[in-house]
């Protein structure tokens, strides 16, 4: 017989967690080995309680190491933004649920819109007639149910099964410390019927994105502002922020905002990396071009003077 935790605890399958807890405590007291109870029975009680506890535990996503396995499970994926991952935001996940009757065929498994064949039982009449001179008696054909036709094709929607895989949505928080490519695990019972593994697919949110394990905020500024090391406005997890560029800051380098990055599992935070991309406009107005030339000449001269002097 299949292991039925409800039967072992002596409660009905619809019992809530409080009822389960009460049943377990009461039975555990009675059958505890210390009181001369059978060890196997006690272990079965304990196992039943653990199973049901897990089933009633609030659904929670866990970071999963290794490769998905188990008897029944679903491998799905979760599209999230870098910000959501970094802060462990609540997201909506879709998980399998109990099958639902196919709406197209109403559970018959036959395609109602598909080709039909004449019912040979009633010869397409839908009724079987027993006629006499004074009256006609008709009964509904038991084979085609009175339609006179038999549907030939299986329902294209459910492919003859009469039911479709159900789905339901759950609002769950992403676990802190999850990173792109990680696999998240939703145990069975907690939310759905089977264990679900989600592969995290992280998309950039604005200028924020994961590069490897790091959360990077990228800013694009024109070269002159970079040259002048002007303040830049960068996007952080806490919103836009003005940053000073250090005087010796060079292209390709990153700014590091200490403990402003994504949360770790233990509640601490990683760093946020700010990368500055510089762009160089390709056409200038003649006036700007002249000014630029002027500046270039001036700077070159200054350079030469510095080296000679």
């Amino acid at each position, binding site marked *: 017989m299949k292991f039925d935790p409800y039967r072992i605890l002596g409660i009905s399958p619809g019992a809530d967690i409080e009822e389960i807890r009460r049943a377990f405590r009461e039975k555990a007291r009675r059958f505890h080995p210390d009181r001369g109870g059978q060890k196997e029975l006690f272990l079965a009680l304990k196992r039943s309680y653990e199973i049901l506890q897990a089933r009633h535990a609030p659904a929670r996503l866990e970071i999963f190491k290794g490769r*998905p396995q188990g008897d029944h499970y679903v491998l799905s994926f979760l599209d999230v933004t870098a910000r959501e991952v970094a802060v462990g935001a609540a997201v909506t996940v879709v998980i399998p649920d109990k099958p639902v009757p196919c709406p197209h065929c109403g559970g018959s498994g036959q395609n109602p819109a598909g080709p039909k064949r004449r019912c040979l039982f009633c010869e397409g009449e839908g009724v079987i007639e027993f006629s006499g001179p004074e009256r006609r008696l008709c009964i509904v054909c038991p084979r085609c149910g009175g339609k006179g036709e038999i549907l030939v094709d299986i329902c294209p929607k459910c492919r003859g099964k009469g039911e479709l895989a159900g789905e339901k949505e759950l609002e769950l928080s992403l676990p802190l410390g999850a990173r792109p490519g990680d696999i998240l695990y939703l145990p069975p019972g907690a939310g759905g019927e089977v264990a679900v593994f989600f592969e995290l697919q992280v998309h950039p949110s604005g200028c924020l994105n994961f590069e490897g394990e790091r959360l990077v905020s990228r800013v694009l500024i024109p070269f002159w502002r970079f040259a002048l090391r002007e303040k830049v406005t960068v996007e952080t997890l806490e919103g836009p922020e003005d940053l000073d560029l250090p005087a010796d800051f060079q292209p390709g380098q990153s700014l590091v905002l200490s403990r402003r990055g994504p949360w770790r599992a233990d509640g601490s935070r990683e760093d946020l990396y700010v990368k500055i991309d510089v762009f160089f406009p390709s056409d200038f107005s003649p006036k700007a071009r002249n000014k630029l030339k002027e500046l270039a000449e001036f700077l070159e001269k200054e350079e030469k003077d510095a080296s000679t002097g």
Partner: protein
Amino acid sequence: MGFEEDVLKDFITEAKENLERLDEEFVELEQRPEDKELLSSIFRTIHTIKGTAGFFGFKTLEAIAHFAEDILSKLRDGLVVADEETIDMLLKAVDYIKAIIAALEETGKEPVDDTYLDFLVDLRNFAEKVAKRAEGGGAEAKEASPKEAPAAEASQASSPEEKKEEKGTETKEEAQAKAEAPREESSKTEEKTSKPEVPKPAASAPKKEDKSPPQVHLTETHVRVDVKLLDQLMNLAGELVLSRNRLVQIASRISDAELQNATQNLSLVTTELQEKIMKTRMQPIGNVFNKFPRIVRDLARSTGKKVNLRIEGADTELDRSIIDAIKDPLTHLVRNSIDHGIEDPDTRVQVGKPPVGTLVLRAYHEGGQVVIEIEDDGRGIDVRKIKQKAIEKGLITPAEAESMSDREALALIFRPGFSTAQKVTNISGRGVGMDVVKTNVEKLGGSIDIQTVLGAGTTVRLKIPLTLAIIPALVVTCEGQRYAIPQVSLRELVGLSPETRKNIHQIGDSEFFRLRGEMVPIVRLAKILGVEAQPRENESLVILNSGAMDFGLVVDEIWDSEEIVVKPLGKHFKDISIFAGATIMGDGKMALILDVVGISRKIGLKVEDVDRAKEEGAQAAYGEEEQQFILLFNVSPEEQFAIPLALVARLDKIKADKLEFVGGKEIVQYRGRSMPIIRLENFLPIQPLPEQEEYHLLVFAEGENEVAFLVSRIVDSIQTHVKLDERLYQIEGVLGSAIVKDKTTLFLDVYKIIEMHDPNFFVKIVPQEERPYRVLLAEDSPFFRQMIANYLVAAGYEVETAADGLEAWEKLQKESFDVLVTDIEMPRMNGLELAKKIRAEERLADLPIMALTSLAGEEDRRRGLEAGIDEYQVKLERAKVLEALANLLNRKYAKAA
């Protein structure tokens, strides 16, 4: 959580094995401290433990393994020599590891105990020391010293980052600094004195000796066994089964009680042994299934599709060799599903599907076989395109394509050199696929079947036997030779006697057997084997399932059911598709194993033919005698009643307020007329009709007269074979009882009840004035007998009944009747025989005879007329029967007068 526990269990098992080996290796190491190979082996083992511990996040375990590995790497590279002290330290580390593993096995968690941390510090210091020694001895530069902690990350070059990184690893540096402190203080002598500081980890009692870290005894629950050994065991078990079979046969010949007992015991043990050995070879199919998440993810990514993978029944067990063999076919099918089946997200949305496709991998046991399904909800397979492709490839002609059924067209996929993809992709390969898949599956004794709906998806279903080596089989004979049929294909056995042969029908060129209303094609084994068959009186029919359909095989004799050991046929026979192999029988002789799928293919049964036969079979069932359409209804909810549906003129519903009680009669306004109502409880000893808002009316009509039964609920109308029990209820108005739909059901005599309600309801059509005509009714079914007798009596006849032709004949000898009404199909003497006999006797030659059947056909009518029957009527058509009977009597006696 169950899943992680499983993995953990595996890990613990593996770790325990490794640790046992480590102990031995360390002992050897003391003998040969510079054995490179030995050191490498130890290093690898520790490295594995470290890796797995890291995977599970067991920090202490990982750290101990890490430092031990550190020390070992120096030993291995020959930078330091393994002295007693080092080996001691390493052994201690192994003991700690054992203690942690033991704790993990018990609680699933690492033990929280300071002794472990203390030891960790010791070990780290020691590792540093060894590293120092290695540096001193070797020519390595200082920078190269491997100081990093297990979690150390590579640092990057850019300056501002480095600043940050240093800050980030501050704690680590601190820890290192802490660890360094004692090292700086400690001289070599100090090290020695500090060594006996024995930690006391874990609950298990460590030996109280000096220098003894915790000694934990790890009980072994698993051992590793060479697969070859298991295969050999399996073969031996096979041989044992053969010997057993032989012995059992000999023992049954020599009837010696003691020998019988002994062989029986041997037989039992052999079976059990074989089962157990088989079990050692069983593996969950998850071993293959669990590779697919990765494959599916990669494929989905590379094709830009979105796919949910659903795994069902990964714990289903199969023989190891089969699992190995289906790995590639399965991979191919999964690739096919993603590549050809599931559409890209945009296309899916356009056709009204969710953007994410679903791929289901499902395994389950079904009748000694394992079914594996690969199901996708993709675009399905376009049969037209397949045909087109097959024409292009020259596999079929356009004319063939025209006449080809969808199922046949689908089978083209399995032809060598066929690929449906418009463009060959790097995923599904170049059309070497499905034919190879099919060949591989069939090699395993399995079958493959595709179900597809264009636009909705495809399911590929593989049926695979659980094991290949020993199978239960049915042994049959044909012309003196024995053949074995695998039991998995067997559905049922039918003995062919003259009686059951009636169910064999010839349709087209094929023969069919009607098995409980289902038409099953049959074929003779002798014909397939091509041997000359002697005509036989008693043959047997073996109903087999070839995966796609059932068919019957006619054999001479059914011998026995036996466990057989499958031996492959030599390569000269491999093209003979009707044999799957050979086996050695109990008497030491050989028998060929029939390949059920091969035979079904050889006889080339067309699914269309079978469908046609089935349709005809269904029609035949309709025309069959004694099948009755009956109407089931309730008066009170507890009691179920039945009447022949044919008697009911109409069914209707009325509201309770439409019922009126006028002049002592209950009536209802119906179609502009007052119709009398019969409440059955007034005439029968039954529960009364409960008060309801709405009632059902069963309306009966006779000419202008109408009357209705008032009932509470119509249960159903069904077609059934009525087997009436007349003895239980001998009540007027009840014909008898029968079990219908699991309920005792009373069959009501409608005519009787109506007559009880209103004796003048039925128009008397008795032609003779002085006395009523005497009718002899011959009918074997009590149900019909009573019913017909009742309506004849109600119509004013005097009725005498007989249960069959012979009884009627006897009654005709003793009494005189005006007319004979007879059924055709009756035991002992049927209606035709009776009619012939009557016509042959001078005294009765003029007796009018009317035959009643369930349904009259022209052929029956002709045969009846030949036998001398005057009238032919359908039993249930009361009015027609009465009219015809009156006419017949008028004709006969008017003539006589």
